[in-house]
């Protein structure tokens, strides 16, 4: 039986532990707290857009702060900590080592998140999550911008520490009898994203420092009045954050590789192509950053290069989809909540990818860029694919974390709510974008089409909100009072579950 069920421990013992499962638990709880907080902001945004003109907020400045903090929270305080949580739980088990390579660094990486989060949430920055200068230099008020800069700086250091830890654990602490080509594909996904983190984060770290000195008036890197170039910031920023998209996505892909073979009771169709696709994406992820900037006045040659770079990412992504379908083909699918969420995520993964191809197709970028189409596109990826698979994995890892079982019926209800809600809200966003509604607007023209579209989108958003609220509430209750799980095989799929005994030795 798992430790927490048999013998509850005092809180401080978990807080100051450096054991990988304890740090993972902290990451997991942090990420779930922040999806609720970020989700509340999302509901605020959708409520504000129910009707044209002020609906619940009188001040556009407040709206601008809300969407900035919503984006920052969801990306850096929900998705990244969740990846670290699952990585911390599973990597040592999957590479058969007793802990992470550097347990103390691991704890430090976690404990950098609360101060970073506090800076972001107390600051309420208003520059949009990508903080384009010169707005963020000359227009953003007072300490909030500085707090956001330092918050992200701290979170960046935390990511780098985590990445180093994962790389060393996987490559150096792996059991000698276990070749790298026999490890789970989830291990590969974490390895690849860790390398990407190491390469991608430093340019943004530099850009943040330059932004800060520009704000202090000491330099003029991005300020045209001082001879700087605002576009330079966008290159540095997207050189970090386009690969970052894959840093968010690939662990979700790895989790799908963990869930699908087990719940289909079949080996992975082609392990090799999974590894190859990860490797290709790792490189190609760095070749397409300027497709976020096609409208900034790039030359025709630049636009061509980055369009090709973007299209090149599609074959390797679609190799994963093929691999999943081929794995399920001819299997015996146990349609429990983890598999349902994963299949839903895969369906939306295709839609999000197709929307991305349309975005990069050059004449079309000028129709869709910076409209709600783009909002729909990346939410379909981040919420529809990544978060759906994360929710599925939360259900999957739940017996291992708590030693208890969730209720399958409630889990199905949350799946239905979240899946339908996601489709409604983000399909509607695509259509609103084609109608010409720019993103990040507090108010829109009182056109009947736009009003109807926004109201349907808001209804979808509420469905998602209710679904996530039920999911979190149910898991919280089940963690305390659920029935005890069969720790050998909690889902009845006839496969060995993760070994709960790794949670025993604490240090």
């Amino acid at each position, binding site marked *: 039986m798992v430790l927490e069920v048999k013998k509850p421990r005092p809180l401080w013992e978990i807080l100051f532990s450096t054991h990988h499962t304890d740090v993972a638990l902290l990451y997991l709880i942090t990420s779930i707290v922040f999806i609720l907080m970020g989700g509340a902001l999302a509901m605020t945004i959708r409520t504000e857009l129910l009707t044209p003109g002020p609906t619940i907020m009188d001040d*556009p*400045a407040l709206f*601008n702060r809300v969407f900035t903090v919503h984006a920052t929270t969801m990306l850096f305080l929900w998705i990244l900590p969740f990846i670290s949580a699952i990585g911390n739980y599973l990597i040592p088990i999957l590479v058969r080592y007793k802990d992470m390579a550097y347990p103390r660094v691991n704890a430090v990486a976690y404990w950098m998140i609360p101060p970073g989060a506090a800076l972001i949430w107390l600051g309420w920055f*208003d*520059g*949009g999550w990508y903080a*384009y200068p*010169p*707005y963020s230099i*000359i*227009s953003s008020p007072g300490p909030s911008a500085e707090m956001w800069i330092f918050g992200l700086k701290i979170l960046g250091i935390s990511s780098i520490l985590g990445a180093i830890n994962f790389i060393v654990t996987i490559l150096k602490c792996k059991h000698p009898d276990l070749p790298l080509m026999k490890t789970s594909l989830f291990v590969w996904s974490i390895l690849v994203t860790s390398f990407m983190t190491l390469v991608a984060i430093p340019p943004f770290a530099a850009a943040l420092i330059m932004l800060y000195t520009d704000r202090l008036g000491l330099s003029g890197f991005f300020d*045209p*009045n001082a001879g700087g*170039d*605002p*576009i330079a910031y966008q290159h540095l920023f997207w050189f970090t954050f386009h690969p970052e998209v894959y840093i968010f996505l690939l662990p979700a892909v790895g989790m799908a590789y963990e869930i699908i073979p087990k719940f289909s009771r079949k080996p992975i*169709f*082609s392990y090799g*192509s999974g590894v190859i696709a990860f490797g290709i994406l790792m490189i190609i992820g760095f070749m397409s950053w300027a497709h976020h900037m096609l*409208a*900034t*006045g790039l030359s*025709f040659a630049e*636009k*061509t290069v980055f*369009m*090709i770079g973007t*299209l*090149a990412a*599609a*074959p390797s992504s*679609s*190799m994963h989809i*093929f691999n999943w379908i*081929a794995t399920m083909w001819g299997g015996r699918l146990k349609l429990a909540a983890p598999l349902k969420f994963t299949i839903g995520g895969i369906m939306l993964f295709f839609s999000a990818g197709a929307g991305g*191809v349309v975005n*990069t*197709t*050059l*004449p*079309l970028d*000028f*129709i869709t*860029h*910076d*409209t709600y189409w783009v909002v729909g596109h990346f939410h379909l990826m981040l919420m529809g694919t990544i978060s759906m698979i994360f929710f599925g994995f939360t259900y999957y890892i739940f017996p291992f974390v708590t030693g208890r079982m969730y209720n399958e019926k409630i889990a199905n209800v949350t799946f239905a709510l979240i899946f339908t809600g996601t489709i409604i809200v983000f399909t509607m966003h695509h259509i609103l974008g084609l*109608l*010409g509604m*720019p*993103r*990040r*607007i*507090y*108010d*829109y*023209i009182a056109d009947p089409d736009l009003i109807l579209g926004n109201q349907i989108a808001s209804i979808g958003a509420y469905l998602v909100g209710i679904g996530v609220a039920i999911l979190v509430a149910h898991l919280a209750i089940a963690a305390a009072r659920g029935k005890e799980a069969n720790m050998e095989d909690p889902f009845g799929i006839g496969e060995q579950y993760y070994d709960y005994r790794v949670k025993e030795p604490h240090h």
Partner: protein
Amino acid sequence: MGHATLEWIYVGVVIAILTWVGVEAWTGEKILEEVPEDAETIKVIGQQWLWTFEHEDGSVEVGKLTLKVGKTYKFEVTSKDVIHAFNIPSHAILIDAVPGRVNHIWMETTTPGEYLIQCREYCGLLHYNMRAMLIIEE
């Protein structure tokens, strides 16, 4: 048919579709990129939170732009303070207004009428209200 064959066919198909998409997009953009020689230049200046238009003959309009039907226009877009994006949704015109740079884009006027001009890059407090009117006259 083995694992590898099936996979290679699949990847080939995906690459073929993407190549078609890429070629289609590239030729399209190539046609749209070239500014016709007879285009009349209009300077577009964005600032928080209004648009200013300067015609070739020196006349200046604020918040509205009057064009003649059946002519070719070239917009030279720049900004005074922060980044904006000059957007006419009904004509698929979009180009960022970046301070310190002049970007250009061109269009032909075909149908008389009144159209919306808006800002599509987040530029602060009244970003949502940074609109202007495009009037195409006979």
